[in-house]
């Protein structure tokens, strides 16, 4: 029992939180439709967090994420305004993001510059480019309906956004856990020197991780734009810390100390559920913050209780 709690503590915490809110608000919170809706609300955060998970698998941070999300939104609308057809525009956005990721990954791995400062610098540059593309303004109009449909509406009663989440999560899980490259990324993250001694190519594999993170962030930028119908040059600002919170919550969830996709999903779900539940209960903003902080602490500590003291 204690072993169970220790092993799956964070998951247990999620279930407990859902149970508690369901009891507090059976009609509004504890309904199938609300729970389904939460999956849609958590999608954007979760996809950014999955990107962060891949980068953390190689033991690095990507702080350019927020800028890339904003860039993804602005650059797509910028291209629409130029009359570029939607599919082409989407490809261009993802490709540009891929280039940013490749640059960060290359600098980090080839020159062994700390990823923290590298991605902060690259993120600042991307922020500048985004401001330049948008003139600092929120862009609205000229967004094709087909593009907007990427993130709105439902199919079989399930929000389209939820399908994106499922798709990205399965892909990332397969890549990290089921195919060779995932093992290489984790080897680099777990012991870079050992991986190098074993002949794992550090530069190219690290680049792959940063490219994945950037491409997913840009995808989120586009989905956000599709969802709200406009793009702001600072629209991605809110994602960075919450995404890493989700990853770190998830690192305590299943495998100790390793960023992993199922864990990140649990982490993102905790954040989304708490936000949803507290708003439904009408808790004031400052109380929401205090309670959210306490719940996150509790969720990571539940794993720890009973762990041997030092």
């Amino acid at each position: 029992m204690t072993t169970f709690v220790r092993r799956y503590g964070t998951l247990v915490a999620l279930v407990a939180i859902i149970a508690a809110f369901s009891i507090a608000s059976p009609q509004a919170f504890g309904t199938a439709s609300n729970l389904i809706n939460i999956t849609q609300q958590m999608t954007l955060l979760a996809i950014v967090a999955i990107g962060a998970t891949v980068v953390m698998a190689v033991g690095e941070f990507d702080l350019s994420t927020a800028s890339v999300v904003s860039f993804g939104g602005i650059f797509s609308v910028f291209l629409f305004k130029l009359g570029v057809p939607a599919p082409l525009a989407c490809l261009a956005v993802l490709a540009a993001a891929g280039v940013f990721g490749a640059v960060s990954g290359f600098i980090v791995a080839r020159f062994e510059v700390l990823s923290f400062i590298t991605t902060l610098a690259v993120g600042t540059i991307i922020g500048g480019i985004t401001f330049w593309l948008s003139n600092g303004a929120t862009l609205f109009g000229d967004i094709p309906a087909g593009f907007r449909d990427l993130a709105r509406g439902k199919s079989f009663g399930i929000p389209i956004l939820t399908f994106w989440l499922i798709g990205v999560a399965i892909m990332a899980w397969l890549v990290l856990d089921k195919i060779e490259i995932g093992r290489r990324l984790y080897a680099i993250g777990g012991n870079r020197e050992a991986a190098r001694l074993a002949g794992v190519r550090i530069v190219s594999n690290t680049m792959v991780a940063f490219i994945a993170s950037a491409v997913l962030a840009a995808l989120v930028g586009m989905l956000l734009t599709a969802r709200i119908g406009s793009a702001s040059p600072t629209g991605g600002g809110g994602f960075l810390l919450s995404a890493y919170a989700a990853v770190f919550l998830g690192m305590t969830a299943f495998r100790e100390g390793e960023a992993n996709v199922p864990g990140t999903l649990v982490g993102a779900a905790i954040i989304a559920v708490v936000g949803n539940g507290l708003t439904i209960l009408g808790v004031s903003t400052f109380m929401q913050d205090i309670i959210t902080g306490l719940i996150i602490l509790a969720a990571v500590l539940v794993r720890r209780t009973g762990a041997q003291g030092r």
Partner: protein
Amino acid sequence: MTKPEPDLTLRADHAFLTLRGLKKHFGGAKALDGADLVVEAGSVHSLVGENGAGKSTLIKTLSGLIVPDAGEILVDGLPVTIAGVQHAESLGFRFIHQELSLVPYFTAVENAFIGRPYPRKGPFIDRAAMRRTIEETARSIAPDLPLDIPVGQMTTGQKQLVEIIRALIGAPARLIVMDEPTASLSDGEAARLHEAVKKMSDKGVAVIFISHRLDEVMQICDSFTVLRSGCTVGAGRIAETDRAGLVHLMSGREEVRGAAQMPAPDSPVVLRVRDVPYGSRGTQVSFDIRAGEILGLYGLVGAGRSSLMKLIWGAQPHAGGQIELDGKVLRAGRISDRIAKGAAYVPEDRRNEGLITSRSIADNLAVSQLPKVRHQAGMPWTSRRKMVERSEAVQSTLSVKMGSPWDGPLTLSGGNQQKLLFGRWFGQATRLLILDEPSRGVDVGAKAEIHALARRFAAQGAAVLMTTSDMDELMALSARVLVLASGEITAELTGDSLTPTRVIDAAFQHQTEKETQV
């Protein structure tokens, strides 16, 4: 092969691998200074030399990790430039590096495949096939090794076994280089490794075997090369030399070996351990160590020796019972309390538990004794001059081969790193010395120094608790031995009953019991 050939370099044309005139310097330090090495196919070749002689550097040139400044490498008589790890792998070279390099979150199975082609089912990794591949090898080398727990949770010895298995699986190798593979193995496991080495060489695989355990070198190797200060000073067939000859070539000196001594019968008890619950089954242990005594702890890999020593050191709180030092009760789980009362500890895994690699040598030597390097007693200001003095004292007493005290410890060879862990306790009035594999990876000369040191501590009235996997060392230092098996003390041996055979029997006792029960 009828007539023995004293100088193998003369027969380089028959050799599978030849290194000629290798040079490599790090800053001002010459790690290699004209080293030669000739290895015949299917032979087990021993590379020996003192700590810092350049052995590890030499083999790193073979793995492509280090590019030599000068010299050439010939494989099958043809010169090659080894461009990197993968190139070395493609030449059929496999390596067990001196410092453990494993991914702590990965299991043994996962670690074994890093950098190797994975077995696949469609696009996916075939975990079952991975496990099957390593199971076979694991069975012959280490039947008890858990394959499915993260190696971060394993003992040092178990990690060492994982490294060995890793080098043995996969595409057939032409050369396996083992840099001190047995440093943390006890005789049982080492014997299994020796068998495996034999099997490989029978299949025509060449083995370069680096070890400071000269007895095993004598036992399993066919030929040898001796390095001194980065230079080859001798080579030949093992059959034509002896232990003393090797030692002489390595150091130019003779080996000193002492004998274990019992303390005077009336000497007071220094460490008293009473009813401390320990091990998975929570059995209680009790024992005493008297002033001047070096108590040995022996057991197989994973028997629980290190855990017991850590418990006494206060690294984990114990749930009951009592530990006393000089009659004073030690607070459970409080290391600083022990240091204040004169206890000292040398951990077994110097990289992960011993050295703070990002800090200087001087800092590593001062960290447990910071008040000793104050400018002025009573004020917390640290004096750099005193830190340097302390480093110099350690350097000369233990003959540590090092550059500046402000260099990082990783610029030292493995054996010299080990000496730093001893140096940490210099200048303390030591009452209890806890040594976990104290001479792991140190050369015979330094080992003698460390032994002398342990004896000196004991002679000054300290109690010494030592774990070693090296039977010679055990016999040389301890007149009383506790044997652990699966977390329980299975025997206490002393006097006439203390013989290597009895010790090993006791260590295996539990296992045989388990087997007979099944």
